[in-house]
C-alpha cells in the first residue's frame, strides 16, 4: 500500500540512524516513522528489519500492540473524541454522533478527501473540561453536540493546519 520511493528509504534510514538500531529502540523508531509518514508503511517495517537487529515480527508485533500506531494512512487532521470516564458521563457519545453526522463518516474512518479522521481516545487528561475533543494539536473543552460541530466549521474556515 505504500509507494516508498528512494527518498522515503533515505528518510527511514535517517530515522534509524538518529534514534538507534538496537532492539530496545523499536518503539521510538516507529514513533518517528509515524511522525514522518503519518502512519507506518509496511515498507518501513521491511526496511528497518533489513538494516537493523530488529526483526519484522518484533516491529509488526509492537506496531499492532500499541494503539498509537496505525498501519494505514490517515486524514490530514485527526479529530480525537475523548471517551474518558468524565467525558463519558458528560456525553462523549453524543459528540461522536454529532461529528459522525457532520463529517459523514463513522468513528474510526477517514473522509474521502483525506482531510479528517475521526477517532476515540481513552483519556486526554483534561477531565475538568469534559467532554473534550482534540483536533490536531488543539484541545477543545466543555463541548456539546452543537459546539462540537463548530470545531469543524472553525477548521474549514482557514484554521491552522497540522
Amino acid at each position: 500500500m505504500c509507494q516508498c520511493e528512494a527518498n522515503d528509504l533515505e528518510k527511514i534510514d535517517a530515522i534509524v540512524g538518529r534514534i538507534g538500531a538496537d532492539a530496545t529502540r523499536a518503539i521510538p523508531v516507529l514513533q518517528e516513522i509515524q511522525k514522518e509518514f503519518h502512519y507506518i508503511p509496511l515498507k518501513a517495517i521491511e526496511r528497518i528489519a533489513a538494516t537493523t537487529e530488529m526483526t519484522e515480527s518484533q516491529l509488526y508485533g509492537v506496531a499492532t500492540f500499541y494503539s498509537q500506531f496505525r498501519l494505514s494512512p490517515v486524514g490530514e487532521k485527526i479529530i480525537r473524541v475523548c471517551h474518558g470516564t468524565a467525558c463519558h458521563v458528560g456525553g462523549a457519545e453524543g459528540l461522536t454522533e454529532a461529528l459522525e453526522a457532520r463529517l459523514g463518516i463513522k468513528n474510526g474512518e477517514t473522509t474521502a478527501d483525506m482531510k479528517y479522521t475521526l477517532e476515540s481516545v481513552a483519556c486526554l487528561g483534561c477531565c475538568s473540561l469534559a467532554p473534550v475533543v482534540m483536533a490536531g494539536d488543539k484541545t477543545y473543552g466543555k463541548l456539546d453536540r452543537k459546539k462540537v460541530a463548530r470545531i469543524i466549521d472553525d477548521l474549514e474556515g482557514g484554521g491552522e493546519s497540522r
Partner: protein
Amino acid sequence: MSEMRKTIVVGMSSCNIAAGAEKVYGIIREKMADGLDVNLSITGCLGLCFCEPQVRVIDEDGSEHLYVDVTPERITGIIDEHLKGGRPIAAWASDLNQGAMVKLLGKQRRIVLANCGRINPERIDDYLAQGGYQALERVLRENRPAAVIDEVLASGLRGRGGGGFSTGLKWRFAYNNKADKKFVICNADEGDPGAFMDRTVLESDPHAVLEGMAIGAFATGADEAYIYCRAEYPLAVKRLDLAIAQARERGLLGKSILGTPFSFDIHVKEGAGAFVCGEETALMASIEGRRGMPRIRPPFPAEAGLLGKPTTINNVETWANIPWIIRHGAADFAAQGTEKSKGSKVFALAGKIKRGGLVEVPMGITLDEIIHDIGGGTGSKRQVKAVQMGGPSGGCVPRQLFDTRIDYDEVVKTGAIMGSGGMVVMDETTCMVDVARYFLNFTQLESCGKCTFCRIGTTRMLEILTRICHGRGKPEDIPMLEDLADQIKHTSLCGLGQTAPNPVLTTLRYFRDEYEEHIHEKRCRAGKCRDLCSFEITDRCVGCTLCARNCPVNCIAGASKELHVIDQNRCIRCGVCRDVCPFDAVAVR
C-alpha cells in the same frame, strides 16, 4: 526581575491551554510589543481547573491578584485597568480568603502540589528558590544511603500509583540486591481515565520528580533512570526534557553530581498507547522495545527488573513526595493521616462536580468533605449519586458511604480502591449499569490477551452488560456476571485482570436494583440507556424553547411560552433536552 514593574503570570498547563490560555498569553505579548511594561511569566496548574484560564498579577508592592475565567475580553480589560491603570478589577479576581475558596483550599494540605501553579516549571531557578534540590544536596553530602531509606520508611509513604506498597520497603529490597547496574523508573503512564494528577505535576513542577528520582537512585545504588510517560501528554514530555536539560547544565544530573562521586542520568521514554503498560513488568517490557505484556512476579523488579537488573519503580506522585520528606523529615510527613496511610493524597475531581480540578488532602479526610465541601457537590439541582474511585480497577462508592475516610484500607472495604486518585462524580443522570459497561469496554479493549480469563472473560462480561443496556438482559445474567468476575479476579496475572471486574462488582453491590430494573422492567431510570427510556416534557415547561433549539433531530414542537411536546417516533433519546432545561421539565419515563 525588576521590582518596579508589575508581574503577570499566565497559567499554561494543558487544562489552562484547552480553556484558552494561549490566546490570553498572545494578547499580553502583543500589548508588550506595543510598549506595555510588565514582567511576563508562565506557571502550571493551580488545581482550580473549574475556573481556568487563570492569570496572576503581582503588584510592585508584592500583593497578588488571581484572575479566573480569563477570556480574551477580560485580559484586555485587566491590561487596561489593572496593569496600566493600577486599578485591580475585584469582580474578576478570586479572593482566596473568602467564601467557597476558603472551603476549597482550607481543607487541603499541599506537599506534591505546593509549587504547582506557583512557580515557572520551565525555569530551574524558580524551583531552586523554593528550596529545590536541597534535599538531594543533603543526602549526597551525608552520604548514607541506608539512612535515606530508613527516613522514607519512617515516613510511612505508600505507593501513590494505586498499589499502596511501602515505598521505603521497595527501596530497601533494591538496595539489598547487589548488582553491577541498577535502575530507577518513574511510572508516568497515567492511564486511568479520569485521572490527571501526574500530568499536572509533570507539567507544573517537573524538577520535584527529578529530584525525588535522584534521591531514590542514590539510596538504592542506581545510576540510570527512565521516565515512562504517556504519549498523550506532549506538554509534560516537553517540560520534562527541558527540566532534565537544565538540571544537567547545573550539575544536578549527569556525572559527579554536586562534586560527589554519584553519577546519575534520566531518559524520557514516550509510551505508545497501552493501558496495561501501567503495570510495572509490562512497562519494563515496553521500555525494552517489546509488546507491553506483564510477566509473572517473582522475580520482582527490585530483584530482576529492567534488562534483568534491580529496578525501583514508583509513580510520579510518589517520587514528588520524596524531596519534601527529606527536607522536612519523616516525622512531619507521618504526623498527618491515619494509622496506616500517612501524608496527603492528590485527587482529580471530575464529572458532575461544581469545582472540578486537583486537590491534595490529608489522608483521613472523608469522601463527603472532598466532594461536597471542597468540590461543591454537583453544582446543579441534582444530587450526587456515587463517586467512581480508582478508574477501571476501582469501583463506585455510593453516597451513603461518603463518611468513608481516605485511607488505603478503608477505601478497599467499600469495594473500590484508592487507585491513582481519579474521582469521577456521578449524579442521577448517570446509569450505573452503563458505567459498568463503560469500564468493561475499556478493560476488554486494553487487556493484553495473555491470560485467557482476562481476554475472554471480560469480553463475555461486556457482551452481557451490553445486552442488559439494550433491554435484552436475562434474569440469569446477574449470577453469570458475578461468576465471571470471580474467575477473572483469581486467574489473571496482573492488576488489570485482577481488578477489571471491580466496577461491575461494586455497582452490583450498591446499585443492584438498577440492574434488576434494566432486566425485569426494561427501564433505565437515569435516562441513559436509549432502548430503555423515553423523555417527556411535563407541565413544568414554560415554553422557553431552549430544548427545541438544542434538539439534534429537531423533534420538539411548541411555540414560545407554550408547553412543548417531543415527537417520540423521531426522538433519539439523547437526553439533550433534559440537560439544557432550566426548569427541570423533562422527565424520564
